[in-house]
């Protein structure tokens, strides 16, 4: 019955009614059904679990870790409004333009920096698509390579800290670890753990582009000579100081203070928020309208995230009432082979769910159900978190359902064919799988840095 409910919810979700309400509503209809069938002894439905609803929602209201969510969203919105990304991209392009493939490098590097500031799936892909795709095509880039690069760098937002989803994942995994009585984790540890795999991904992306630039020069040409001369070295240096250094410093100080253990994520987020306001002021982009816009959008996006959390909470209470938890535990425990078979299957399931559900939904609905079992088997929570993040990132890149492909399709000109986009992302999917395999072989890639940072 629990699994049937899960399947039905997935089908109902496809109709397009908001996810949070669908999760809660469908589960409650099932609860009614369960209650009725219980009277005839058809299923074992324990209504007692539902009594926890109010205290669970109040628990969400009192959750200290999640206070970082609105703060980081606010910081990202201020940076977005102050046109930091545009300036960055322009500067990077001026810096790397003279190189073959230079524009591609800039997109990946700016994507990495942007990722660290917004962390919301879609936002980065759309921004980068609007800003850089037309330029790349005009310069004669192979459309497949241009679109692949943009899609891939857009999804970096999920893994490069301080991404919002890592905060949510950190919170969910902490609860799961408490439940399983396993090794602990925290948002800070997850941030530290994501750093090396994230940078590894970025370097492999760059390496791949360098390889293409070397073997197929006409696929990613350099900016022509005459345009280069239009800007003197001195001007360029000034531009770099103004556009590149401040956001870089902001992100390094926010991340550094979390990973260095100086500040809690929430505290670092408030520093980042003030820093982004100062930055916007310095770029003369700050005024009352920008502030109001950022504050209101923060309210809306934060509420959206927490509504999914509330919906997922109600869903999982009903799921437990049907005995779904024991069912999943038994299923995973009875698998042949080691605990890694279970991890592999869960990863595969999440990969497929990533085609229909967003990262936030999977974090709140699926992770709380499966993570305690995996952690009780001895899986390291921090490692699991990073694997989930990279896995979902890959899922969002994979044709034909990957989210980032949809987002880019929405803003790409018609002359870019969809097949070209599919072809373009395939090498990046290969890189993703390579990094996941390395993480599976060498878990230290994720666990080493947090291990020495937080003893």
């Amino acid at each position: 019955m629990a699994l049937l409910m899960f399947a039905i919810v997935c089908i109902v979700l496809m109709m397009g009614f908001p996810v949070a309400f669908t999760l809660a509503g469908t589960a409650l209809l099932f609860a009614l059904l369960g209650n009725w069938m219980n009277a005839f002894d058809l299923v074992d439905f324990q209504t007692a679990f539902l009594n926890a609803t109010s205290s669970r929602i109040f628990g969400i209201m009192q959750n200290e870790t999640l206070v970082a969510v609105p703060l980081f969203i606010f910081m990202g919105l201020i940076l977005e409004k102050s046109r930091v990304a545009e300036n960055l991209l322009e500067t990077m392009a001026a810096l790397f333009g003279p190189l073959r493939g230079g524009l591609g490098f800039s997109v990946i590097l700016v994507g990495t920096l942007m990722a660290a500031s917004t962390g919301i799936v879609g936002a980065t892909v759309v921004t980068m698509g609007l800003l850089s795709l037309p330029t790349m095509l005009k310069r004669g880039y192979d459309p497949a390579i241009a679109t692949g690069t943009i899609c891939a760098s857009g999804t970096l937002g999920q893994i490069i800290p301080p991404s919002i989803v890592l905060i949510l994942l950190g919170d969910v995994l902490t609860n799961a670890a408490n439940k399983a009585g396993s090794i602990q984790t925290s948002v800070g540890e997850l941030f530290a753990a994501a750093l090396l795999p994230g940078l590894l991904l970025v370097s492999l992306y760059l390496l791949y582009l360098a390889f293409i630039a070397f073997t197929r020069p006409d696929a990613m040409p350099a900016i022509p000579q005459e345009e280069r001369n239009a800007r003197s070295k001195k001007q360029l240096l000034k531009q770099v100081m103004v556009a590149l250094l401040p956001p870089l410093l902001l992100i390094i100080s926010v991340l550094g203070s979390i990973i260095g253990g100086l500040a809690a994520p929430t505290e670092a987020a408030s520093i980042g928020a003030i820093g982004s306001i100062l930055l916007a002021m310095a770029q003369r982009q700050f005024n009352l309208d920008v502030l109001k816009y950022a504050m209101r959008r923060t309210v809306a996006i934060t509420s959206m995230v927490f509504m999914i959390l509330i919906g997922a909470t109600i869903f999982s209470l009903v799921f437990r009432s049907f005995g779904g938890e024991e069912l999943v535990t038994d299923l995973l425990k009875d698998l042949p082979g080691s605990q890694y078979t279970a991890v592999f299957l869960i990863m595969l399931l999440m990969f497929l769910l990533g085609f229909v559900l967003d990262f936030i939904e999977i974090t709140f609905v699926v992770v709380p159900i499966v993570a305690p079992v995996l952690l009780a088997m001895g899986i390291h929570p921090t490692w699991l978190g990073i694997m989930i993040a990279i896995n979902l990132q890959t899922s969002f890149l994979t044709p034909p359902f990957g989210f980032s492909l949809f987002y880019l399709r929405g803003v790409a000109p018609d002359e870019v064919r969809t097949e070209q986009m599919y072809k373009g992302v395939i090498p990046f999917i290969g890189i993703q799988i390579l990094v996941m395999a390395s993480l599976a072989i060498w878990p230290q890639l994720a666990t080493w840095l947090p291990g020495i940072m937080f003893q």
Partner: protein
Amino acid sequence: MMNKTIHFLESISEQSGRLVAWLVLLLVLLTLSVAIPRYLLSNEWFLGLNLLSLDWSEIRSNYSQHVNAMNDGIQYMHAIIFMFGLSYAMKSGDHVRIDILYRSMSARRQAWVNIIGILLLFYPTFIFILIMSWDYVLNAWSILESSSRPGGLPWLYLLKSMLLIMPVMMILQGTASLLRNIQTLINRDAS
């Protein structure tokens, strides 16, 4: 008549969203004003500077007296932001949908999805939260429940009352949305 009702209901969501938006800025400032003194007061080098030859032990005890109230304040603001913001987010259409199919539907179809969704999924959810929270909130009021932290804010029962206010606001906004979708159907039929 219908238009007036929709506008009235939506303006509740809109105004409350705009109002709590200012809490975002306050949240940033309050979080900073808890974090910075905490950091400075535990930093030997800074204390060693002995600026203005202040009595640090007095300042420290002062800080620790108030820090719990400030931490409670951070939590209150955070909770108020999203509990009041839920209906605002609904009005501005920010609750995410899986739109693979929805996007390509006709306006009529979309209106039907929303109407059925609100009646069958949305209303039950918030009526359920309202019913489940009734006794929970009443209990908090009967003892005027206060903070669990020493020196924290004494208004926990007020904060818990949000569990009743939020579903009511959502039901109002949901009704506005329901009427708006019915209007879409009617207008389509008329034209």
